[in-house]
Structures are given as C-alpha cells and as structure tokens.
C-alpha cells in the first residue's frame, strides 16, 4: 500500500535529505530510496547480484503472458505498483533504470498512482525485474492487465474534461457578448449578439450538460429526484425563455447566467471527483488478497497459477507470508497461520495435518502444503467478499442533508416566484412583466450555492480528511456521519494499544535462568505474550531447546525440555479479563504472570466526551469478562456491551440498529460494516475494507475518529452557511432588481462576483 504524503510517521527530528534537501524524519539521511540511489551514483547492479531462480513461478512463460500488456509488435510491457515513491528523485531514479539494468528498455512513472510502466527485453526474467525493484528500495507488485486503469475509465475522464473545456469556452464568450448587450447595445447589433449567445449556448446544452441529463434520468428511473433534476429543469427554462424572447425580439435573455452556472457545476463536480479518486482509486486497483502466482501440483504436473485458476484437488505449496488462496486441507504435519485478515486477531495459530485451512489465512511457517477443496473463486472468503461488494453497490443513497437543504431552497424560490405572479395585479405589474421577473429571480437565485457550493465543500473535506490519514470512499459519508446516533466499537482492540503489559508477577523476583527458559520456549512464537516477555527482559540470551506447542482456539500451551526437565507455559485462570500465564516445571507451578492490554491514552476522555452525543457500545468477539473490564476502565457510560459475538450476530445487530457508526477490522466484520450506516475500517486489507465500509483509517488509535466527527460537523456547518449566504444574497439582489434598484448590467456582474465570494469563503473555511 502506498502511503506517500500521508503523515504516518511520527515526526521525530527533521533533517534535510542529503540529496534533495527535502526535510525528512528518516534516520538514514535520505528521504527516499530514489535519493539514496542518485546520491550514490556508482550504485550498479548486474544480473549476477540478483536473485536467480530458474524455478521462480514468475519466470514461467504462461505467467509472463498473463501479466503482459498486449501491444502487438512491441516489446513485452508490464505495469507495476511500487511502494515508497516520495519525491522527484524517485521519478528520476526509476526512469533512469534502463541505464542500470539491461533487461528494461524503457520506464515511465505515474507518480500520483505510484505505478511504473516498463518495457522489457524479449529474454527478460520477471523474477529478476521484481527483485531489482526490491533492491532499489521500491517493493513492486505486478498488476494484471485488467487491474490496469482501463481504457474505459480513462476515456470517461478525458471525455468529461473535454465537456468542461467546451462549457468554459462557450460560457466565457457568451459572457463577453452579454456585457455589451447589458451595456446598452441596440438595434440589429443587439439581435446579432443575442443570436450569437444562442448559438454558443447550443454546445453547452447538447454536449457539456449530457452527464447531467444522464444522472437526472437515472435518478428518475429509481423514482427519486436528485440534485441534477432541478438543475436540468432550470437550465431548460432559462434556455426556453431566452430563445422565446430572442425570437419575439423583446425581453431578457439568460444565456449568460445559465451558461455560467453550468460551467461552474461541471468544474466543481470535476474537482470533487478528482479529490475522491486520487485517494481511493489507487487502493481499489491493488487486490492484495489475490496477490501473485501460486505453485500448484495438479495430476503430477507442476504449474504456476493465479488465484482464479486454482481448482479443487490442486496441491498448493506455499512459502512463508503467502496468503492461502482457496479453502483447503493441511497436508504437512503442522504449520503456523496468521488469521488476522479474517478475524482481526493477531494471535497466530498452529494447525495440524488434515485440519481445514480457510482461504485468507497467512502462512507463517517456512513452507507448507495445502490441498485445495474449493476453487480460488469459490472459497468462503471470495464469496463473502463478493457479497460485500454487491451489497455496497446496491446500497441505496438516502436523502441527505445537502439534498434536503437544496430542496428547501428550491421551494422557497418557487414559492416567491409563484407569489410574485399571483400578487402582480396588486403590485401594478402586467402578468407578462411579473412572469419575466419571477423567471429572472428563479434563474438568478437557484443555482450557484446548490450547484457548486456543495460539491466544493465536500471535495475540500475529502482532501482534508486524507491529510489526516482518513480515506473516505464517497462524499456523502460526511452527511451520514451527522445522522449517526450510535457508535459501536468492534473489537476491544480499537480501544486498547494491542500491546500487553505485565501488571503482576509471582514471585516478585524472577531468577535469570527462569527468564532464559521462558524466552527460549517463546523464541519461535509470534504470540503477543511472547513479544511482551521479550520486551520485558531484553538482555537475556536465549538457548536452543526443543520447544513444541499445542494450541486450539481458546488456549495456547508451549512446552519444551532442557536440563532434564519439562517446562510448560500455559494460560492460567483469568482475573478481571486479564491474560494470565503460568510457568510450570514438570507440572509444578513455579511462577505466574498477569498481563493487561493497556487502554489507549485518549480513549477514556474521548469516549466520555462522545457519550454526551452518541450512545456507545462494544460488539466484540472477545470474551464477555474482557469486554466488561475494558468498559470499566474507560468509565464512560456504555449503553450496550456484547462479548462473544460471531460475525453473523454483529451483522444482525447492525441491521436492527439503523444510524449506527461501526468501527471494525478484519474480513469477518465486513458484512456488518457494509450494513452499518457508516462503516469505519481501522485495520486489515484496505481494498476490501473500503469496499465494505465507507471510511478507512490509516493511522492507529482513536484520534482519526475524533477528527472525522468534527470534520463532518464542520462540513455541515459550511454547507449550511453557503446556502444561507447564497439565499440571502440572491433574494436581496433579486428583490432589488425587481424593484428596479439595480440595472441588469450590475446584476449580471454581481452574480459571478457572488459566486467567487462563495468559492473563496468555502476555500478559506476548509483550510
């Protein structure tokens, strides 16, 4: 995952990078690998230095073809995602690769997407290319051609840009012509200028505004009215009335203001789309789960396959850190697995021969073999991810604050216009004059705040959130957050540090030999307790001993022999939800240790603060007593505490409680997260997290939650302020115009000025 530009590292002490002089907090004097590479320009790599493995799955011809971008007649090309792109030096160093590495003919970097496009020599070795990037300091991942930004999406983007350009050019020219009309142009020249405005308006109507028609039409098909519908209506009323007035040679034309507002709408939408895309699209393209190529034995033949090509009965051989691609059965005596992707639990588990291994588990042992029982696309994990995906696609967009406010504003404008026509006899106006003035009010008052004040405020909020390490999937998240009344914390892990701390040990003084035995027993272990012991006694040496471990879901036991004794570490009786560990010598209890997961520093204060506005609760798979003890420590008023929850129970609970913001992690929560009003994913694979939830926190802890809540409120206030400003300005100006206090030229000038003021105020408020 690329984390460039996001302030993930706690800034310690910033020093200028030796090469590019950009301030950096990295300890090795360079801000990135590119700078280090360019600084040591003698740095050369020959193929001989590179990992050379003729049997690497990446060098099998069928795998190469699978990843190649098909361009007839050209050199084989690939697209890779790189980690750690930081600054311009990275671009230079990477694009200079052909000078250093003979297998690559050309290299092109796409910096915002963290991608590189390379063309290789016909006899290239893909595994060596990957290894080369790794050695340069940019771990690379091959992208499949279908993951590559498709031609379709690119085309759509270029198309939108062209529509925007046409709208801008036409609106600009119409406004120039309109100035002379307002300035007092008369006679046949006035007609010619008005006709020119009409002609220039046509491309906007029939080309630039097409996306608006599409969106209005699709919302009508679902029997809902979205913002685009009144905009389209206003545009056509403006066009129709102006054309009518043009033909009869009497009355106002509104081509200028209508063109201006369409252009501003398109600009603000473009901005919103770009700021959303910039932060989310990169992550969507990276399917971390189905990463890479798998070595498979099928009917005595050795094959290299992608996840989607794995079939039941295949024997998979997986190295350390590989993710199991399909549900299967373990075929080696025992192996360690990390289930954190599915359960959020970071405690590794040991499985034995013939036990079922679910897809998504990560192998921690050096090597293991698994016989697939499902195909890659039919595993439980793949099915659950697909369910989540369809659910999030069909998630209905409820009516949100912005739409509601916009609708109210429209009603006010319509009512005022209607009243004016009704009351025209009393105001001494002819019906025609009244209609004319009502129309001008409608066109002048409606659009600006509605059409671009909103998207602009949302776009800036998305940007601001990203700077704080919060990735937001869509802009309406900010509205939905404001509607939430309940906050459900999934695991206690979101409230605690996740690092165990020793609170009590018996005896008080542990002799060094005992520490040594304990550390030796734990030396292979990745269990949090093992880490806790290691950090407790950092200076004790370990010795070699025969350590075996047996584990099941609820307890873990490690034992080993040395000095003729059998030593055991096992879970003891728990007290107040703490983790208790016993140390035994030949079944005789020698010592015990109580560990506690420390509460996050900010948790108590923040939750007490939040409880004033929201009802809080914990929905956790952890034991009930542990949930209780965490709640007691926080001492905030929780309205519900549920331990021992299964994924299904969580998901059911969420469906029964609308307007819930849920914080969760792990693939097993994804269904609950996708059902929640706002699903916040705090850990786990980001791609799937974002498909299920709407928000992803890149930073640990609870500060992002606080930031997110206050940002949502600030955005709501900003939009309300924009609407109020626009409404009061437009009504004042409109009324002044109606009463004849402002001449049309001044009104036409004031409108863009008011729009600019709105943009400036939004911009300032979002800084």
């Amino acid at each position, binding site marked *: 995952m690329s984390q460039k530009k996001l302030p993930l590292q706690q800034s310690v002490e910033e020093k200028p990078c030796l090469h590019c002089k950009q301030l950096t907090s990295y300890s090795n004097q360079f801000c990135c690998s590119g700078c280090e590479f360019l600084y*040591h320009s003698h740095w050369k790599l020959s193929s001989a230095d590179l990992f050379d493995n003729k049997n690497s799955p990446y060098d099998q011809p069928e795998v190469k073809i699978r990843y190649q971008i098909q361009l007839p007649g050209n050199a084989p090309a690939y697209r890779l995602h790189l980690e750690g792109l930081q600054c311009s030096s990275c671009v230079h160093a990477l694009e200079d690769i052909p000078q250093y590495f003979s297998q690559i003919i050309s290299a092109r970097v796409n910096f915002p997407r963290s991608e590189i496009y390379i063309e290789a020599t016909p006899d290239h070795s893909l595994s060596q290319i990957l290894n080369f990037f790794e050695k340069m300091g940019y771990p690379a991942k091959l992208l499949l051609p279908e993951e590559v930004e498709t031609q379709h999406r690119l085309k759509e983007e270029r198309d939108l840009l062209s529509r925007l350009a046409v709208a801008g050019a036409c609106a600009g020219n119409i406004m120039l012509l309109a100035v002379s009309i307002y300035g007092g142009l008369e006679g046949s020249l006035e007609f010619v200028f008005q006709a020119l405005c009409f002609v220039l308006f046509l491309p906007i109507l029939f080309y630039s505004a097409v996306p608006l028609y599409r969106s209005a039409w699709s919302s009508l098909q679902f029997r809902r009215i979205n913002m685009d519908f009144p905009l389209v209506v206003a545009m056509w009323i403006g066009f129709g009335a102006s054309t009518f007035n043009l033909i009869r040679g009497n009355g106002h034309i509104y081509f200028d203001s209508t063109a201006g507002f369409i252009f501003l709408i398109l600009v603000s939408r473009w901005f919103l789309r770009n700021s959303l895309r910039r932060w989310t699209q990169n992550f969507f393209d990276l399917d971390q789960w189905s990463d890479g190529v798998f070595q498979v034995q099928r009917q005595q033949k050795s094959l290299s396959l992608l996840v989607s090509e794995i079939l039941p009965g295949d024997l998979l051989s997986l190295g350390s850190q590989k993710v199991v691609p399909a549900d299967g059965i373990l075929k080696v005596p025992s192996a360690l697995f990390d289930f954190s992707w599915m359960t959020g639990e970071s405690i590794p588990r040991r499985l034995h021969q013939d036990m079922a291994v679910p897809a998504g588990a990560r192998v921690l042992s050096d090597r293991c073999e698994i016989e697939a029982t499902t195909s890659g696309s039919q595993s439980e994990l793949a099915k659950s991810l697909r369910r989540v995906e369809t659910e999030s696609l069909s998630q209905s967009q409820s009516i949100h604050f912005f739409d509601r406010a916009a609708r109210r504003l429209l009603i006010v404008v319509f009512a005022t216009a209607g009243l004016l026509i009704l009351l025209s006899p009393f105001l001494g106006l002819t019906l025609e004059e009244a209609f004319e003035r009502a129309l001008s009010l409608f066109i002048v008052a409606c659009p600006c705040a509605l059409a671009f004040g909103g998207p602009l405020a949302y776009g800036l909020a998305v940007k601001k959130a990203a700077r704080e390490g919060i990735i937001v999937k869509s802009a309406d998240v900010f509205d939905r957050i404001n509607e939430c009344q309940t906050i459900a914390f999934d695991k206690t892990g979101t409230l605690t540090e996740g690092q165990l701390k020793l609170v009590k040990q018996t005896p008080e003084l542990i002799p060094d030999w005992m520490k040594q035995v304990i550390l030796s027993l734990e030396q292979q272990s990745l269990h949090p307790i093992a880490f806790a012991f290691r950090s407790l006694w950092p200076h004790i040496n370990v010795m070699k001993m025969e350590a075996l471990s047996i584990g099941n879901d609820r307890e873990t036991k490690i034992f080993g022999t040395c000095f003729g004794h059998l030593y055991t570490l096992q879970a003891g009786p728990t007290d107040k939800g703490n983790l208790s560990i016993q140390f035994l010598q030949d079944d005789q209890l020698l010592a015990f240790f109580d560990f506690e997961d420390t509460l996050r520093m900010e948790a108590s204060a923040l939750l007490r603060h939040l409880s004033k506005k929201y009802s809080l609760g914990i929905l956790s798979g952890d034991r009930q007593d542990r949930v209780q003890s965490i709640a007691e420590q926080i001492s905030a008023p929780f309205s519900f505490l549920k331990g021992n929850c299964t994924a299904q129970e969580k998901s059911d609970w969420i469906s029964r409680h609308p307007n819930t913001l849920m914080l969760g992690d792990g693939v097993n929560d994804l269904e609950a997260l996708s059902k929640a009003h706002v699903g916040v994913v705090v850990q786990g694979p980001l791609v799937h997290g974002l498909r299920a939830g709407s928000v992803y926190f890149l930073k640990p802890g609870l500060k992002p939650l606080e930031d997110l809540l206050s940002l949502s409120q600030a955005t709501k206030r900003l939009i309300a302020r924009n609407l109020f400003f626009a409404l009061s300005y437009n009504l004042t100006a409109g009324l002044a115009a109606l009463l004849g206090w402002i001449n049309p030229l001044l009104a036409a000038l004031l409108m863009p000025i008011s729009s600019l003021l709105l943009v400036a105020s939004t911009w300032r408020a979002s800084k």
Partner: protein
Amino acid sequence: MIVLTLMIPMALLLGFGFVMAFMASAKSGQFDDLETPALRILKDENEKGKAHHESN
C-alpha cells in the same frame, strides 16, 4: 462598427481553435497524469556529477 463583422468571427474562430486543440490533447492523454511531468522536468542532467562532487 462594421469592423465587428470581421472581429467577432475571428475571435470566435480563434477560441474554437483553442478548444479543438485542448480536446485533441485531452484525447491523446496529455492530462491523464498532471503530476509526474512536473517532477520529471526537475531533472538536472549533471545530477550524477554533482552528487558525486558533494559526496567527496
């Protein structure tokens, strides 16, 4: 004022030409990545020599 009959079509034609040029460049993908070219241009051809000099 007769000059307007010449000026306005000329101005519009000019504008039209620029819009066409913009659309053509958008279509050819010049605006797909607005960030990398800005970084690419910073490259100093003597960079290697300079870096070496500083390190000595």
